[in-house]
């Protein structure tokens, strides 16, 4: 299991460089706004409204890191900042790369714009400030500690901590090897799995009912910064993305994942002994599934469960071009099998065997049940 930082690619418009003096404030901010919103520029992460993205990209609008801290802002944009930070009381964990492709003047425009956009009221920055910092700052990417040691928060803003100690290193990263955690997940029984696959496809598999629950790709893997690994074990893991595949179940209605994360119910919606809609039907058996365990195949989980006298295995990997997840099933002894899938507008579902009808019913002959695969891909990634 390794994390590798995603290479940060910056594409931006090369505009004629303007060493112009005596621009009005409006002119400076206009230039700054244009650079900020350039394709692949600041806007890509911090968003047009400067609100950033939950959990990973901190907001610039109203950020308490900007207050009285122009030197700090210049330092972050010149050298980058990696690590866990707290902004306006919220935790973020990601890395901002050094903005190497902007010259002193452009950076000054951008920072001046950020300092004055969205209700911010901070100074205009001139290119000499940037030039001097570029000369004097140490070359390393800042950590929250090294940055705040050099540029501490002004006492009058009453900030104590600009950083926090994460219990789990969930930095925005490219998944290179599968990651398997058993933990509490929303919308699953308490016996759940959270799995990350190369291609950054993530899924929840529920051992309480022997079934895939949902798959997502955007927003990163489970955010375990709720102390799951150091506390009493109470928190239900959270994730930021919206699943592109969510298996149909008649026993849940339209509850949101937030609702399904609640731990303070008097009663459950249902318990697993009442579970009725197991998505696999084997001819001639009406048994409920029994979970048997999982085996790692090159690091990928191969779940094993029984249905009466039949044993089913389900190996879940990414597909060859990492555009989705591939579920490979075996049924032993072989038997005519029906798999109830859930096509949605966000995903496509396909199979290498059998007959898949538009409603998601996949009919597999006894012979084919020896081994068959189902591919689930998010639509926008599936071309």
């Amino acid at each position, binding site marked *: *299991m390794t994390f590798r930082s995603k290479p940060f690619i910056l594409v931006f418009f090369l505009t004629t460089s303007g060493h112009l003096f005596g621009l009005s404030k409006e002119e400076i901010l206009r230039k700054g706004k244009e650079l900020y919103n350039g394709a692949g520029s600041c806007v890509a992460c911090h968003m047009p409204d400067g609100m950033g993205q939950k959990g990973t990209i901190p907001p610039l609008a109203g950020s308490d890191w900007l207050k009285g801290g122009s030197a700090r802002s210049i330092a972050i944009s010149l050298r980058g900042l990696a690590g866990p930070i707290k902004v306006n009381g919220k935790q973020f964990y990601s890395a901002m790369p050094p903005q190497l492709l902007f010259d002193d003047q452009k950076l000054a425009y951008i920072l001046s714009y950020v300092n004055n956009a969205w209700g911010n009221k901070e100074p205009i920055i001139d290119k000499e400030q940037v030039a001097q910092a570029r000369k004097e700052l140490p070359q390393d990417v800042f950590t929250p500690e090294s940055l705040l040691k050099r540029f501490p928060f002004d006492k009058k803003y009453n900030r104590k901590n600009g950083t926090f*100690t*994460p*219990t*789990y*290193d969930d930095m925005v990263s490219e998944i290179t090897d599968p*990651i*398997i*955690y*058993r*933990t*509490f997940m929303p*919308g*699953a*029984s*308490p*016996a759940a799995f959270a799995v990350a696959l190369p291609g950054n496809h993530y899924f929840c598999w529920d*051992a*309480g009912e022997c079934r895939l629950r949902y798959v997502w790709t955007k927003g990163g893997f489970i955010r375990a910064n709720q102390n799951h*690994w*150091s*506390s*009493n*074990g*109470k928190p*239900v893991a959270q994730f930021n993305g919206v699943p592109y595949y969510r298996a149909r179940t008649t026993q*849940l209605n339209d*509850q949101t994942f937030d*609702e*399904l994360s*609640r*731990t*303070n*119910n*008097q*009663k*459950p*919606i*249902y*318990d*697993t*002994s009442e579970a009725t809609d197991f998505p696999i039907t084997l001819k001639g058996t009406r048994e409920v599934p029994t*979970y*048997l*365990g*999982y*085996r*790692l195949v090159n690091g990928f989980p191969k779940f094993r469960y029984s249905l009466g006298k039949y044993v089913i295995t389900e190996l879940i990997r990414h597909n060859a071009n990492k555009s989705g997840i591939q579920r490979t099933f075996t049924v032993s002894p072989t038997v005519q099998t029906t798999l109830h899938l859930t096509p949605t507008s966000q995903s496509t579902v396909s199979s290498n065997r059998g007959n898949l009808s538009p409603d998601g019913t996949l009919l597999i002959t006894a012979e084919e049940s020896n081994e068959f695969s189902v591919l689930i891909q998010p639509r926008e990634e599936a071309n």
Partner: protein
Amino acid sequence: MKFIFCYLLLACIVFSETAPQYSVIDIPPPPTKFKNIQIDGLTFLPNGKLVVCLPSGEIFFRDNKGEKWELFAEGLHNPLGVLALSNSELIVTQRPELTRIRDLDGDGKADDYEVVTDQFGMSGNYHEFNFTPVRDTQGNYFFALGTGSSGDGVRSITRGTFNEKGRPGRMHSSAPYRGCIMKFTPDGKTIPYSYGHRTPNGLGFDLKGNLFVTDNQGDWVGSSKLFHVQQDRFYGHAASLAWKPGFNEVPIDSPVEKLAKLRTRACVVFPHGTMANSPTEVLAISKNANFGPFTGQLLVGEMNKPRIVRVMLENVDGELQGACVPFIDGSPLGRGCNRMAWAPDGSLFVGQTKHTWAGGQGIQQVSWNGKMPFEIQKMELTEDGFQFTFTQPVNREKAQKKETWPFFRYFFEYRKAYGSPRSAEEKVEVNNIHISKNAKVVKIRLTELKPWHIHEVNIQELTSQNGHTLSNNYIAYTLNRLLKNTPPEPLQIKKPKK
């Protein structure tokens, strides 16, 4: 009256520290990437490697030179105990299962996670811990299921048949068998073995094969306890009765008299505040242990204090009962002593945890230097008092004084409310003291022995004939039964206020 006894207690010197013959050192922790090194499972492989489980769900092996940690398994859900079946096969209790973890391809890393049993429920409440697998000589596995806490509710989807009868109460049992000790038999059956447990953080066998479990003070548990676990018995915490065949009421609404009559008493009560507040694993001092003249006795960890308690039991009138005494006590031992195991060299390894409660984190090694400490070797019941055996001859002059032996007795009420005060606490006068020829055995005759009461003493300023101070002088004997003619068990209940 109460005031006077408090005064008397304060007047007694409580002297408790690790004997100088025992040393405690820190073991460098495993390189977990989750930045906390709480130890929730600890054992040794047959090849001598140390095994630890962490809240992160990781399991590490440490090589015999103590230089290198290897990650063996990961991704487990709060593993709280581990047994090694071979150098490549472990049994682990994690929240959802009893799991067999194996390295099949021999690369040193687990690749098969097989369910041994998951035939018990989970409401998803954080307090539903799954504690410490143990295995008997017939191949049965036992594990201990914690109850849910009113500190939170249940999840949207729960596992196992939801039972509303077990739901009310401070600690609840709405999912199957929470609050039971479970047995998994070689022929594959999973059965609730005993009932009435609250937070049974730690099973262990003695050298004769008796099974024990601790419980933590709280509702229905007046003070923390050690139980001798026997099939189908009920040990006092009401919630799990929801799963006992034939018990059809809502357990916490059942009259407390009825519950009191159903319950089996603890063989040892750990007085709250003075002995232990949150006892953990039970570990017998085995023949392979190199730990002083205490073979056959039990060690019990304690979370709140830096302490490991020693327990000595005897069979009285057909049931086990006995005494507890602090043993390894105070710094440098850390708090949170949660899991223990004997190293191949006979030293004791201790893993510490906290999980937001009082405790600590890390691994320590406790070693005995082979020289005789000055300790109470055992305390046994006699017809009219107690007999103390010491590890060294005692100073006769000091042992002969009645003031050396300030005995008190009291009981903890059985009640729904959290914990219990010491009830009916009284000083017990010493009648007569007899010291054996070798000066190692002191018989104390008391003016009265009252069954179903805890009898405790802070032995005052006793030294050995060599002038050493008694290392641990506070000992509490849970006197349930007398040698003969034990009167019927009193209820010792507190009825809830209407």
